[in-house]
C-alpha cells in the first residue's frame, strides 16, 4: 500500500484494514481500487460509489470482529447480500466498510418435522426451497430475483413476491433471526416457537434495510408444497374493468395464490420474447392462480372463472397442464428482460395502492406517459395492490433521465395520495428517500430516528438510507402536509 502521509482518510483506511486483518484472512479484506470496483453498486446501478474497504467474513465470529472494529473506529458499515436490491439499500459509503455476507452461505439444517430451515444469511432464496423440496416443502416468499437474492437481504428488505396475498411476505415467513448489534453483540430475535417474549423485535428488524442489526442466521418457516396449481388467464378490453375484476375476485371470498395484471404494452413487449400466447388485442390480461388439493383447485378455478366472466372478461383460458401454467406465467417472469430488449434503459417503480384505486392510478400513469413523452408498460401483482410500472428511457439522453425521475416521483406521490405507499417491496434505500418526506410527518420521521437510536446510537449501520434527515426533507421541498399541520415549523423559510 502506498501511504500518502498527508492523507488522513488514507491513514484511517489503513488502520481499518490492519485491524480487520487481525481476525480475517488477507483475501477477505479488500482495499485496492480494482478489487473494490465490483462492489460499487447494487441492483440500482444508476448510483455508484466505490467503498472504502470490503470485508468478507466467513462466519459469525469474523462478522463480529468487523462490527467491533468499525464501532471502535466509528466507521460506517453497509451490509450486503447478493446486491440484487433495487433501491440502493447496499449502496456503499466511500470511507466505510462494505460488509458482504456472501461467504456465509451454508444451509445449517432442514427440519422436515418442524417444517423449518436454519440458514446463513448468504444462502440464496431459491436454494432454501431446493433443499426443502425432497420433503415436499418449500419457502413461500419468491421475489422475482429469487435465483440470486439472499435470505439475509430478503430479511433486510422484507422481500415479497407474487404469492404474497396468500402466503405473506418475508416477515410472515421468518421465525427467528440471529444477528449482531452495531457493537458486535449477538442477539436472538423471534424463536423457533411461534412467538418470543417481549417486543416483536423480529418484525421491527425485518425490512429495516440493515440499519438496526446485521443478520448472521435465519430460521425460516417451510410450507407444504401444494399438490397442484392452475391459472386462469382472462382478457379485458378496458383497464378499469380489469381493475374491477381484481376487486370482484376478492369480494367473492377467493384468495388467489397469485393474481397479476399486465397491460397491452407489457404483453406486446413480452409476447415476442416468450410466445406465451397472450391476447395482444386485450387492453389488459389478468393471471389468477389457484393452488391446493386437486379437489380444492377444481372448485376454486370454477368460481374464479365465474367471477371473471361476470366482471366482463372478453376471453378466458385455464391452464390444462403444468407446462401450460408455466407458459402463462413466463411473460410475467420475463417482463424485465423483455422490456430490456425494447428500450435501452428502464426504471422500475414499486408503489402500492388500495386495489379499488387501480383503474384510476393506471389512467394517471397513462396521462403521465403523454405528459413526459415516455412509454410505461405495467406489470402488477394486482392482487396485493403493488404496482411495477416500467418507465422506458435512454440513459444517454440527460433530458430523458430527468423526465423519468419526475415521472416516477409524480407516480409515487399519486400512490400516497390514494392511500398507498411509495414502496411495496423494493425498499426505500437511497432511491425513494425524498418521497419519505411526503409520506411521513416530521414527528413520524423523528420516531424512525428514535428507533434507529435505540439500536445504533452512533448511526453507523447503513447511514443515509431509508430514513431522511430533517434537512434533507427541507431541501426536497415537497412536504408532508397532513391534518393541516405546517411541516418543519422549526426551520427558517425564505
Amino acid at each position: 500500500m502506498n501511504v500518502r502521509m498527508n492523507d488522513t482518510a488514507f491513514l484511517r483506511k489503513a488502520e481499518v484494514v490492519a485491524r480487520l486483518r487481525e481476525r480475517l484472512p488477507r483475501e477477505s479484506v479488500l482495499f485496492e481500487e480494482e478489487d473494490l470496483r465490483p462492489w460499487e453498486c447494487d441492483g440500482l446501478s444508476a448510483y455508484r460509489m466505490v467503498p472504502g474497504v470490503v470485508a468478507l467474513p466467513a462466519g459469525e465470529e469474523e462478522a463480529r470482529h468487523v462490527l467491533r472494529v468499525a464501532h471502535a473506529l466509528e466507521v460506517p458499515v453497509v451490509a450486503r447480500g447478493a446486491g440484487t436490491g433495487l433501491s440502493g439499500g447496499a449502496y456503499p459509503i466511500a470511507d466505510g466498510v462494505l460488509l458482504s455476507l456472501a461467504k456465509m452461505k451454508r444451509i445449517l439444517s432442514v427440519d422436515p418435522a418442524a417444517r423449518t430451515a436454519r440458514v446463513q444469511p448468504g444462502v440464496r432464496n431459491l436454494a432454501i426451497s431446493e433443499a426443502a423440496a425432497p420433503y415436499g416443502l418449500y419457502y413461500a416468499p419468491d421475489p422475482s430475483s429469487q435465483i440470486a437474492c439472499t435470505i439475509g437481504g430478503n430479511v433486510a428488505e422484507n422481500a415479497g413476491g407474487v404469492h404474497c396475498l396468500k402466503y405473506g411476505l418475508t416477515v410472515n415467513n421468518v421465525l427467528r433471526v440471529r444477528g449482531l448489534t452495531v457493537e458486535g453483540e449477538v442477539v436472538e430475535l423471534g424463536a423457533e416457537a411461534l412467538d418470543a417474549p417481549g417486543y416483536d423485535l423480529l418484525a421491527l428488524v425485518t425490512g429495516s434495510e440493515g440499519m438496526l442489526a446485521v443478520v448472521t442466521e435465519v430460521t425460516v418457516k417451510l410450507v407444504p408444497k401444494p399438490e397442484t396449481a392452475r391459472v386462469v388467464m382472462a382478457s379485458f378490453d378496458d383497464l378499469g374493468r380489469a381493475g374491477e375484476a381484481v376487486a370482484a375476485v376478492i369480494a367473492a371470498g377467493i384468495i388467489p395464490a397469485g393474481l397479476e395484471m399486465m397491460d397491452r404494452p407489457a404483453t406486446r413487449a413480452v409476447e415476442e420474447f416468450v410466445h406465451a400466447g397472450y391476447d395482444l388485442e386485450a387492453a389488459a390480461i389478468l393471471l389468477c392462480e389457484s393452488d391446493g388439493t386437486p379437489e380444492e383447485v377444481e372448485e376454486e378455478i370454477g368460481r374464479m372463472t365465474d367471477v371473471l366472466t361476470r366482471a366482463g372478461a372478453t376471453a378466458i383460458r385455464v391452464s390444462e397442464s403444468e407446462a401450460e401454467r408455466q407458459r402463462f406465467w413466463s411473460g410475467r417472469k420475463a417482463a424485465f428482460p423483455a422490456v430490456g430488449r425494447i428500450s435501452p434503459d428502464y426504471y422500475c417503480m414499486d408503489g402500492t395502492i388500495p386495489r379499488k384505486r387501480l383503474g384510476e392510478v393506471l389512467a394517471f400513469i397513462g396521462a403521465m406517459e403523454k405528459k413526459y413523452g415516455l412509454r410505461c408498460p405495467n406489470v402488477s401483482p394486482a392482487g396485493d395492490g403493488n404496482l411495477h410500472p416500467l418507465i422506458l428511457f435512454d440513459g444517454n439522453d440527460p433530458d430523458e433521465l430527468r423526465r423519468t425521475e419526475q415521472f416516477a416521483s409524480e407516480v409515487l406521490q399519486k400512490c400516497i395520495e390514494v392511500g398507498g405507499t411509495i414502496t411495496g417491496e423494493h425498499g426505500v434505500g437511497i432511491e425513494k428517500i425524498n418521497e419519505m418526506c411526503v409520506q411521513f410527518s416530521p414527528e413520524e420521521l423523528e420516531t424512525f430516528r428514535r428507533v434507529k437510536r435505540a439500536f445504533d446510537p452512533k448511526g453507523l449501520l447503513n447511514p443515509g438510507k431509508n430514513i431522511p434527515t430533517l434537512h434533507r426533507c427541507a431541501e426536497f421541498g415537497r412536504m408532508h402536509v397532513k391534518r393541516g399541520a405546517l411541516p418543519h415549523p422549526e426551520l427558517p423559510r425564505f
Partner: protein
Amino acid sequence: MSDELQRLADSIRAAAAARSPLRIRGGGTKDFYGQALAGDLLDTRGYAGIVDYDPTELYATVRAGTPLAALEAALGERGQMLAFEPPRFAPGGTVGGAVASGLAGPRRQAAGGVRDFVLGVRMLDGRGDDLFFGGQVMKNVAGYDVSRLMAGAMGTLGLILEVTLKVLPRPAAEATLRLEMPEDRALETLNRWGGKPLPVSASAWSGGELTVRLSGAAAAVRAARGKLGGEAMDADAAARFWEGIRDHRDPFFAGDEPPWRISVPSTAAALPLPGDQMIEWGGALRWLRTQADARLVRDAASKAGGHATLFRGGDKSVGVFHPLAAAVARLHRNLKAELDPAGILNRGRMYADF
C-alpha cells in the same frame, strides 16, 4: 382532531410532564394479564368505531375502543373474519386491547398471529404525538415497521388509537374431528399432518383426546376428513368447543392451579412437568396447570427452545414473562426510553424495570 382524541393526547402530555404513570385500559378483560397494573386509568372506550371497512380490500380500520365483538360481527355480516381468532376471556374486550396484548386463538397455527394481520396503526407515543405507521395495503416497506411492534407491546410504547387489520374470508366449510391418542402420539401426528397440504386450522389435545378443526373449500375439507379419520363433532358443539379453548372457558382452565402458557417449537417432546397440559397450535403451544416452581417451568421451556408465561394468577413476583437475554433487554429499555421518555405508559406491565 376529535374531542376524545384530544382528551387522550392531553392526558398523555399532562402525565408526561408530571412523570406520572398512566394505565391504558379498554374493556379491562385482560387486567389479569401481565405484571403490575399501575397509574391513573386512561380509558380508550370513548374512541370507538369502524373508520373504514371495504370487504374487497381485505382490511378494516378500527378505533381502539371498538368492542371486539362489534368488529367481528361487522366482518361476519360480509362473510369475513379476523383470522388470528383473538380470545375474548370476558365480554367487553376492545380491538385495541386485542392488538396490544398480541394474543391469538386456535387458528394461529394456520393463519398467523396478531402481528401478521396488523397493516398499520395510528398511535400516540409517550409525548402525546399523533403518529401513523404502515397503512391499509398489504405490501408496505417504507420506514421501520412500527405498527407490528405495537402488537403485543402491552401498551408500553404507545397508545393505539386506530389499527388497520387485514381480514380474510370465512372458510367455505369447516369440520371438527376427535381422535383418542396419548400425548406423544398426538405430538407426532400433529407435526406429520403439518407437513402435508391438509387444511388443519386448529388443534387441541388434553386428557388423551385430540380435537382438530379443518377449514377450507368444501372439497378439501371433505377429502381431509377421509384421510384423518376420527369422529366428527356436531357443528354447534364444535363451535362451542373452540370458543371455550379460545376464551379459556373450557373445563381445562377451571381450578386453582395457575395456567402457564408455554410456547415451544411444535416438535418439542412432551414437557416433563407436573400438572395437566393442553396442547394447541399443532404442538407449538402448551398450556400447563401447575403449582410447580417457576424456575422448573421456565427451565423446561428454555430447554425445549421456547419460553413460559405465567398467564393468570399465581405469584407474579417470579416475573410473568420469560426473562430476556441481556442484549435484547437492553434494546427493550432503549426503545422504551426513546418512544416513552417519561416512562409513563403502562409502566411495569410487561417487565418490572420499564
